[in-house]
């Protein structure tokens, strides 16, 4: 009896958690397969589920969707650029700080941590102003560089934590053999760090793909905005086609979710370990 009661109590927690988690997601899905009429009827399941909304989106057959493919390309381009650049910058920095023990490395690490802890929305204001000074506003590079700035501190921190754990004997052996720092980096360090590198690359990629605030501050030109900002445009009027917005939103949300779950093995271990240490 006691055992059944304990199981029942677990289910009593599980069911609200499941509903709470999935309701907004289900609602996106529900809207995206509804016709305009049934979307606004408040039904829990449409009378005639349809995939027509997705066709409309793919053929760009609505005022808000005229640049759909261009925007998705921008999102992809920006996310990949941020992933590659962050990975390069952070790996080099972590190697210099952790393995070469370069003078001033600690100061740089502190500067990076400081950037990590400053709320991103606060940094957005001076960043916007500076991008204007640099003449980068409305160029995709402004968003790429801003996101690299936001992603690298955490990337460096996690990679430094991971590389501190590598055995120091490897470096000594390499130095005795007369290896150059670049050889050590390429032949020893990178292969050993691969799992962390995958996690960090994915982290930066997703951060950039998902970003809204910086994207809408820095880019406003029809041809440069990523899909996130394009979705935001739907709110410009009250009678927007919500069912099309939700279909587009589903297309926008699917890739990051898929990537996250594909690399979950690396992500959970690699990222939460460094996030907060007790």
């Amino acid at each position, binding site marked *: 009896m006691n055992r059944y009661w304990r199981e029942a109590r677990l289910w009593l927690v599980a069911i609200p958690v499941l509903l709470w988690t999935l309701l907004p997601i289900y609602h996106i899905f529900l809207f995206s397969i509804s016709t305009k009429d049934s979307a606004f009827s408040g039904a829990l399941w449409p009378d005639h589920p349809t995939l027509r909304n997705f066709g409309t989106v793919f053929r760009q057959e609505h005022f808000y969707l005229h640049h759909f493919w261009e925007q998705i390309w921008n999102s992809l381009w920006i996310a990949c650029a941020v992933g590659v650049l962050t990975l390069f*910058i952070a790996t080099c920095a972590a190697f210099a700080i952790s393995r070469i023990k370069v003078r001033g490395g600690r100061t740089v690490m502190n500067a990076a941590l400081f950037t990590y802890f400053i709320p991103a929305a606060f940094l957005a*204001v001076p960043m916007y102003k500076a991008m204007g000074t640099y003449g980068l506003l409305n160029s995709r590079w402004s968003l790429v560089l801003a996101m690299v700035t936001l992603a690298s501190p955490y990337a460096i921190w996690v990679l430094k934590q991971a590389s501190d754990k590598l055995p120091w004997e490897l470096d000594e052996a390499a130095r005795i053999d007369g290896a150059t720092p670049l050889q050590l980096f390429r032949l020893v360090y990178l292969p050993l760090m691969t799992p962390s590198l995958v996690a960090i690359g994915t982290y930066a990629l997703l951060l950039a793909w998902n970003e809204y605030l910086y994207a809408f501050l820095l880019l406003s030109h029809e041809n440069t905005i990523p899909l996130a900002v394009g979705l935001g445009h739907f709110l410009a009027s009250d009678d927007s086609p919500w069912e099309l917005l939700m279909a587009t939103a589903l297309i926008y*949300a699917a890739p990051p979710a898929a990537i996250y779950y594909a690399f979950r093995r690396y992500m959970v271990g690699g990222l939460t370990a460094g996030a907060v240490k007790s």
Partner: protein
Amino acid sequence: MAAVDIAVPGGNRALTPISPPKRRLSWQTWGVIMLAPYVLVFLVFVLYPVSYGLWLARHPASYQTLFDDPVFFRTVVNTIVFLLVAVNVKFMLALFLSGFFVHERAWIRWLSVIFIIPWAVPAIPTIFSIRFMLNPEWGLINSVIFRLTAQDGPNWLNNPSLALTMAMVVHIWKALPFWTLILMAGRLAIPRELYEASSVDGASAWQKFKFVTWPSIRTLYLTSTLLSMIWTLGDFNSVYLLTGGGPADLTHVLATLGIRYIRLDQVDQAMATIVVALPFVLPLVYFMMKRLSANE
């Protein structure tokens, strides 16, 4: 000995340097070169913008205008309420749910995979989805309320307190999985023997929590709460995408107010808004940096 076989060819190659040792760059030089890209990013996109921003915020007149703006006072109150209520409710839920998710059942592992979704998907789609759900006329929530009670539900986003509450709900929905994971990791690090020993001594579930779990994860809980407060202060999406700061600019928080001033082309004002928050943010940042450095 396989290890030696592998080591020797590499070693031989390295023993015959192509260039004389003198012309090689030293390790420290390479360190500086490899650190340079990040230092450059920091100088150009953090240090310069922040210094420039602080310089823009030097006029006392900006603060005068800011304090005279009726929206500002409301914003400060909203921000404090948001920080205290949303962060603490989120952490109590995370503490509770982390205790649920550490149960060893196959189906709970599956549930935890689903539970991560809000954190894994981008903010816009889900927040818009919640926004439509809350529409007073055709939203899902009010339709259900009408079907169950035959009465109209509240006008969720048109009432400032309700709208701010909903923004907090959105924030919690989005951030809860991450912090639950963190606290779960903390709980899993507690040695099992402690629980077994307390079971033998006849401890109740509450006593186990009070004397074993809580002392072990208290530091993690407090550190995480502080860190979450800093980040929640910068949570722009939950408020902006749900309410847009409305109705009548009554649900702004500092993060959205700063951006609002930018959109109105008042950058000095926007910077002043942020400077006002710094006395609160900087001690927290300092504390967090000390914590992380202490761990090395």
